[in-house]
């Protein structure tokens, strides 16, 4: 126990990475190198760099050659507030580029207690297995009896088999087994690592689950300094208005915000507002379905919901959530305003192990194609696949999981659907990952963030909201122009987005949740909590030398490595553009009515972004000088 944790690190890191070859069953422990930790910190830093190093160009994501990486950060397992996040990464079968996903809960700290900072899996097992990791030891065990089971059943069976209620499980469901391209992983039956199809990669490897349990200490190099930094960090959260909002309504608080700004991508981005949105607001879900406010490990924000449908046709349904993204993908996009159907659909996605965002987007796209006559009733299994049809939504979620009937095509996501049906225009994605969060037609900086994200469209890869609250003098000091504080101007916004991407990578490296880490509408607070205090906690925990400037550059380094991965796969400037619909069609309603993206404006934004990043404007490739300055590769 205690002895196993002896490593070259004074704290934070377990000091070991577990390598598993599923083809021949070999398992190897390798030491974590100090230099690697200093440059890539952990989590997404480790996973992105390992993928870059170990994968060959054009590797088939569902082949044994792909890697599945499960990585914790140095702060996981310590009492750092909200240090609960896990990264699961691989080359994505949905997008064909770098894929990673992030899940909260308890798995990531437990991985550290079990003695490892990360697990790298390769190969393909000849029969179903699961990986059991306990206190520095690991073994592959048969998962034949688990195959076919949904997430909750799998968790139950594993706990029974291992005789321990306190194990932590990262599992895939039937969708992963059936290689649905956006099958997700679910930790402990609650925390979805939704995006990019990591569950399908597990399925392709015949790996049903990874189970961890441990009793090892996560060391803290300087406890006194650590406590002071953590207390200061906590104080910044206690005073934050966002903390209260997230506690009360969870991420579903954003429903009202989306309606107010008119930035829903409702009806597959044919509407910007929703009639009857009050029925699916955070308040409505709280009132009707909330059982309890929950939190991930060590979290003081506690945005997690536990909800139940106790009456009606879907009773009883007990599930974690819904999140804002559940409501957006399973409500707004297919235009369903019955909250019970949304909650039920969310529950089914979690049980089958499907990313609800891509599932909702794919079904919404099919609804539009059906309404436009591009898909016939025969093609969609005789279902009246129109917007607002909740039964159709539930019907096809199950069919996607088992790739039955039309579900087989839906299971490939919007990009492939668009190609097969010659209907690219209605596939609203960037690099194969569907646009989530909001419709950016009236907000070009958001469009840029979604379009340049290194895992395909993603609102969490940047923080394009800084211009909503930064003061002119702060804008001048940080981005060289006061214009960044002007919402109407696009000057300096490329630079702002680039900065925010590097900065927002940091919590993904540390294992910290961004909801605790970046929620503030004060720019000095973003710097104080997000860089200064985070760096202070990192240094106190690990004993490693680091300044806040160096930490920021770690974020930039990781972002560049991810970009290199995608460049190696052949992606250039032209793939850093938002979907065509956002340039062609105006927002049809709401406060932003009449807005659409303008090509020239976007070109300029992208130019400025590339310049701020030190990437070649013509191709979007990082220049040798940039890479040299960052010490990459």
């Amino acid at each position, binding site marked *: 126990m205690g002895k196993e944790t002896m490593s070259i690190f004074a704290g934070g890191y377990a000091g070991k990475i577990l390598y598993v070859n599923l083809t021949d069953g070999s398992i190897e422990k390798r030491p974590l190198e100090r230099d690697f930790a200093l440059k890539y910190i952990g989590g997404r830093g480790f996973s992105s760099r390992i993928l870059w190093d170990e994968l060959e160009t054009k590797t088939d994501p569902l082949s044994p050659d792909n890697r599945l990486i499960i990585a914790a950060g140095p702060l996981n397992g310590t009492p750092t507030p909200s240090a609960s996040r896990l990264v699961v990464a691989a080359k994505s079968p949905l997008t064909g580029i770098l894929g990673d996903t992030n899940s909260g809960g308890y798995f990531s700290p437990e991985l550290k*207690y079990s003695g490892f900072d990360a697990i790298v899996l390769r190969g393909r097992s000849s029969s179903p297995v699961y990986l059991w990791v306990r206190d520095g030891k690991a073994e592959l065990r048969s998962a034949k009896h688990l195959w076919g089971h949904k997430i909750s059943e799998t968790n139950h069976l594993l706990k029974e088999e291992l005789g321990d209620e306190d194990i932590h499980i990262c599992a895939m469901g039937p969708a992963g087994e059936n290689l649905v391209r956006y099958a997700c992983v679910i930790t402990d039956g609650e925390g979805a690592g939704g995006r990019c199809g990591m569950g399908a990669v597990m399925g392709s490897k015949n790996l049903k689950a990874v189970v961890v349990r441990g009793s090892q200490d996560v060391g*803290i190099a300087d*406890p006194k300094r650590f406590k002071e930094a953590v207390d200061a960090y906590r104080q910044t959260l206690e005073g934050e208005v966002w903390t209260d909002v997230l506690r009360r309504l969870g991420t579903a608080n954003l429903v009202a915000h989306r309606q107010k700004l008119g930035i829903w991508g409702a009806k597959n981005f044919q509407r910007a507002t929703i009639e009857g949105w009050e029925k699916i607001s955070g308040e409505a879900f709280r009132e009707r379905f909330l059982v309890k*406010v929950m*939190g991930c490990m*060590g979290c*003081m924000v506690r945005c997690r919901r536990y909800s139940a449908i106790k009456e009606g046709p879907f009773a009883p349904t007990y599930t974690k959530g819904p999140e804002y993204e559940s409501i957006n993908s399973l409500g707004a996009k297919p235009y369903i305003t019955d909250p019970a159907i949304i909650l039920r659909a969310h529950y089914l996605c979690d049980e089958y192990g499907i990313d609800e965002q891509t599932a909702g987007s794919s079904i919404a796209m099919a609804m539009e194609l059906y309404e436009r006559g591009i898909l016939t009733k025969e093609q969609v299994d005789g279902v009246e696949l129109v917007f607002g049809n909740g039964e159709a939504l539930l019907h096809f979620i199950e069919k996607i999981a088992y790739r039955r009937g039309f579900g087989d095509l839906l299971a490939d996501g919007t990009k492939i659907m668009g190609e097969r049906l010659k209907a690219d225009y209605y596939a609203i994605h960037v690099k194969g990952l569907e646009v989530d969060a909001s419709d950016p037609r009236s907000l070009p900086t958001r469009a840029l963030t979604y379009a340049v994200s290194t895992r395909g469209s993603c609102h969490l890869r940047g923080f394009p909201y800084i211009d909503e609250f930064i003061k002119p003098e702060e804008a001048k000091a940080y981005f060289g122009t006061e214009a960044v504080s002007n919402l109407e101007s696009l000057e300096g916004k490329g630079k702002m987005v680039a900065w925010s991407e590097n900065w927002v990578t940091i919590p993904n490296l540390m294992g910290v949740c961004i909801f605790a880490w970046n929620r503030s509408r004060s720019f000095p607070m973003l710097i104080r909590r997000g860089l200064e205090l985070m760096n202070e906690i990192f240094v106190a925990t690990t004993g490693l030398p680091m300044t806040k400037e160096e930490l920021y550059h770690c974020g930039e380094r990781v972002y560049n490595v991810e970009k290199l991965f995608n460049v190696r796969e052949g992606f250039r400037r032209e793939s850093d553009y938002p979907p065509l619909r956002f340039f062609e069609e105006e927002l049809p309603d709401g406060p932003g009515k009449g807005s659409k993206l303008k090509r020239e404006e976007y070109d300029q934004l992208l130019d400025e972004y590339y310049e701020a990043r030190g990437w070649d404007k013509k191709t979007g490739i990082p220049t040798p000088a940039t890479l040299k300055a960052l010490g990459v590769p």
Partner: protein
Amino acid sequence: MCELICAFHHHQVGNPGRACIRVIALGQGEDIPVTCLNCEKPPCLDICPTGALHRDESVGMVLVKKDFCIGCAMCVNVCPVGAVTLDLVEGVAAKCDLCEGDPQCVAYCPAKVLKLTDAGQFAKYRMKEFAKFLKCQVGEN
């Protein structure tokens, strides 16, 4: 958070397995924190063969003299609530010591559901609640 901060306070590490307070998940959203009840007649104290578990009269609590503990786990066996454990690393009895009167689990509880309170005061609080209930009943009739 209570488990994490407990282990940090006592051992300066991150490891909830070494905490003296545990949150027990009962399913369907029910999580109940459990820790030492500081019994007036503690079975752990009575059964300890070496005197490692002793009552510190200055604070009125049962505490552990680690040097005396032989790790026999008799205290673990007799504790009616499971609040005494053997520390995972040191192998000796571990139980809540209320952090010298300032329990860190209470200080750091994000939901503010953990409180340190005296049994007498708590009974008074219950009585007050009950009195309010009676008042409502009387009012309705």
